[in-house]
C-alpha cells in the first residue's frame, strides 16, 4: 500500500481539526448591527448623541451599560425565542412549523382557565370559566395542562407529517387555523383573567432569587439583573439544554441527518417517522411553555395571543443561520438570531420610528435572511 501514501492533492491527512463555526459570523453581524444603531444615534441630529446600549453620563456609578434597555431587549425576545428553539429543530429536519402562534393562543386559553383564583379583592372572580372546583388549583395543574396542549398539538403535527406524507407546510397550516378556532371557542371569545399569585409569579417573580433561597435578595445584581426577568432566564436555560441535546445526543444527530438526506437517514436505519413525531412534539411543548410564560406575565389570556409568533420564531432561526432546506443551523445561531431580531426592533423604538415601519422592516428582514441563506448555499454548492 506504499504506492498510495501520497493521497489526494498533497495535503496532510488523517486530521481531526475543529472547524470554524458559522455562529461566529452571526455574532459579528450582531455586533455590526449594534454599531450601526450606535452610529445613527451619534449622527442623526434629532438623537442628540444618545447611545442605545450605553449610559455614559450615568448618575449611578454602577455600570456604563443601559441595563434598562438591554433587559427589555432580552425580555422581548425570550418568549418567542423559546418557540424559536423548537422551530429550529423542526427546520433542521427539513420541515416547517406554522402552528406555533396558534398553539400559544389555544394553550394560553386552556391553561389559564385552570389557573384562576376564586376571590378577587374579596369578590368572586368576575372572569370565572369553570365552577369552584377549578379555582385555586395547585400550580402544577395549569402548568401540565399548558405543556400538554402544546405536546398534543405538536405530536399531531408530527404524526400527520410522518405517516400521511403531507408536506409540513400544509399540516401545520391546518393546525394553525384550527387551533386559533379552539382558542376563540374555549371561552366564546372572552378573555380569561385573574390567575393565582403563584401562576403570575412564573413570569413576574424572581426565579434566581427563589433558587438561591433568598440569600442574595438584597444584592444589587439580584434586583438589577433578575427581577421580572424570569422568561429570559427560562429562555437561557432551555437554550443551553437544547444546545447540548442537538450537539451531543443521538436525538440531535438524527435530526440533522434527516434534514441532510432523508433517504440516507432511512437507509442507515434511523426511525425517520418516530424522530419527526418527537421533534414536532418537542416544538409544540415549547410553544405551550411560551403560552404559560405569556399569560403569567400579562396575568390574562386572550384568544388572539401569539398571533404571527410563528413567523417571528422562523425569522429568528433563519437570521441565526438555520437553513430552510434542512440539515444546517444550531441553537446558538438561533439565540444570536433572536438577539439580532430584538436589537433591530428595539433600535427602531430608540430611533423613535413609528411602529408601522417596524413591521415593514420586520418583513424585509425575514426575506433578506432567506435570500442570504440561499446565497450561502449556492456558494457552498459552487465550492463542492
Amino acid at each position, binding site marked *: *500500500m506504499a504506492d498510495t501514501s501520497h493521497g*489526494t492533492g498533497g495535503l496532510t*491527512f488523517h486530521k481531526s481539526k475543529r472547524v470554524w463555526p458559522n455562529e461566529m459570523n452571526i455574532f459579528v453581524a450582531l455586533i455590526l448591527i449594534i454599531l450601526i444603531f450606535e452610529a445613527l444615534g451619534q449622527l442623526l441630529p434629532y438623537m442628540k448623541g444618545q447611545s442605545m446600549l450605553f449610559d455614559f453620563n450615568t448618575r449611578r456609578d454602577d455600570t456604563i451599560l443601559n441595563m434598562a434597555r438591554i433587559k427589555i431587549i432580552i425580555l422581548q425576545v425570550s418568549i418567542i425565542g423559546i418557540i424559536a428553539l423548537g422551530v429550529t429543530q423542526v427546520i433542521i429536519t427539513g420541515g416547517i412549523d406554522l402552528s406555533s402562534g396558534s398553539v400559544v393562543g389555544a394553550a394560553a386559553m386552556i391553561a389559564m382557565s385552570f389557573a384562576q383564583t376564586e376571590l378577587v379583592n374579596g369578590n368572586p372572580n368576575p372572569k370565572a370559566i369553570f365552577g369552584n372546583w377549578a379555582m385555586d388549583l395547585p400550580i402544577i395543574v395549569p402548568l401540565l395542562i399548558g405543556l400538554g396542549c402544546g405536546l398534543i398539538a405538536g405530536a399531531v403535527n408530527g404524526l400527520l407529517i410522518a405517516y400521511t406524507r403531507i408536506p409540513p407546510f400544509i399540516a401545520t397550516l391546518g393546525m394553525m387555523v384550527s387551533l386559533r378556532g379552539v382558542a376563540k371557542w374555549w371561552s366564546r371569545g372572552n378573555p380569561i383573567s385573574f390567575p393565582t399569585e403563584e401562576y403570575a409569579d412564573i413570569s413576574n417573580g424572581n426565579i434566581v432569587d427563589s433558587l438561591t433561597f433568598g440569600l442574595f435578595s438584597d444584592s444589587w445584581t439580584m434586583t438589577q439583573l433578575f427581577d421580572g426577568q424570569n422568561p429570559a432566564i427560562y429562555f437561557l436555560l432551555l437554550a443551553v439544554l437544547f444546545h447540548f441535546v442537538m450537539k*451531543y445526543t443521538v436525538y440531535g444527530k438524527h435530526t440533522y441527518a434527516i434534514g441532510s438526506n432523508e433517504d440516507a437517514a432511512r437507509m*442507515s*436505519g434511523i426511525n425517520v417517522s418516530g424522530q419527526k413525531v418527537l421533534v414536532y412534539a418537542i416544538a409544540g411543548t415549547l410553544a405551550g411553555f411560551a403560552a404559560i410564560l405569556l399569560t403569567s406575565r400579562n396575568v390574562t389570556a386572550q384568544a388572539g395571543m401569539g398571533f404571527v409568533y410563528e413567523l417571528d420564531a422562523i425569522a429568528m432561526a433563519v437570521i441565526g443561520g438555520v437553513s430552510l432546506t434542512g440539515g444546517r443551523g444550531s441553537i446558538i445561531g438561533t439565540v444570536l438570531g433572536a438577539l439580532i431580531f430584538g436589537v433591530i426592533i428595539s433600535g427602531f423604538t430608540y430611533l423613535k420610528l413609528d411602529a408601522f415601519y417596524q413591521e415593514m422592516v420586520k418583513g424585509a428582514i425575514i426575506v433578506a435572511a432567506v435570500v442570504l441563506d440561499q446565497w450561502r448555499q449556492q456558494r457552498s454548492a459552487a465550492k463542492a
Partner: protein
Amino acid sequence: MNDIVLKTQDLTKHYGGVHALEGADFELRAGEHVAIMGDNGAGKSTFVRQITGVEQRTRGKVWLYGKEVHFAGPLDAREAGIETVFQTLALADDLDVPDNLFLGREITKWNWLGPFRRLDYKAMREATMAGLEKTAVKIPNIRNSIRNMSGGQRQCVAIARTATFHSKLTIMDEPTAALGVQETAQVENIIRTLKEDGEPLILISHNMRQVMDLVDRIIVFRRGRIVANLKKEETDGQDVVAYITGAKTGAEFEGAA
C-alpha cells in the same frame, strides 16, 4: 452446503413491461470475491436492489448463509449483515465523516436516556481514524462536512463505512466510477483488505483491469440475464468483452440471451 454465503434462484424483476432482471441463478462462496459486468442497463443494479431489499422482487428466491430471506427494506438486509455501497451514495451531506460512518449505529454513553443518550464523539473519531488508517483512505479533515468534499473523497467515505464494520457480505455498485487514479487505488486497496480478512464481496464494475486484478470470478449480465460465469484463471479481457457484447454466450446459458 454451508459455505455458500449467498444464493439466488430464478431471481426476477419486471418494471411493468420492462424485464430488467430475468431468472438469475447465482452463488457466492465464503471468502469469494465476484465481479458482475455488463453493459449499461444490463440489470446489474437491479440485481443488487433485489438482494438488498431496496425493491421487492417479482419472482424467485434468495438465501443468505443457507437461510431463505425476504428483506422488507435495506435496513433488514444490513442487520442481516449485508453492507452495500449503492450507485447513488447514501450519505448525509451536512454531517462529517465519523457522523456518517456511524449514522444509525452511534457509539453512545448514558444509554438510559433513550433517544437523548449521549454520543461518544471521541470513540467514534478514534474508530474512524483507525478505519481510515486500515483502509488507507485519505481525508484532509474528518470534521469537515461531507458537502465540502470532492466526489472521490465522498465515495471513499461511503466505502470506508462498509469496511469499518465487519459484515457477512459486502456489495459495491460501481465504487470507482467517478474516481481519479489515486482514489481508485485506495478503493482497490480496501477491497484487497476485505479479501485478506476473508470477507466475501460482490463488485459491480465496468473496469476490466480492476476486475482482472481483484476478483476470483466474473459474472456477465446481458439484457437482464446472466450469460456467463467465468473463473478468472480461465478467461481474459477479450473473452469477457465477447460475452458482454453478445458475440458469445456461455454453454450452460444457451438459449438464454
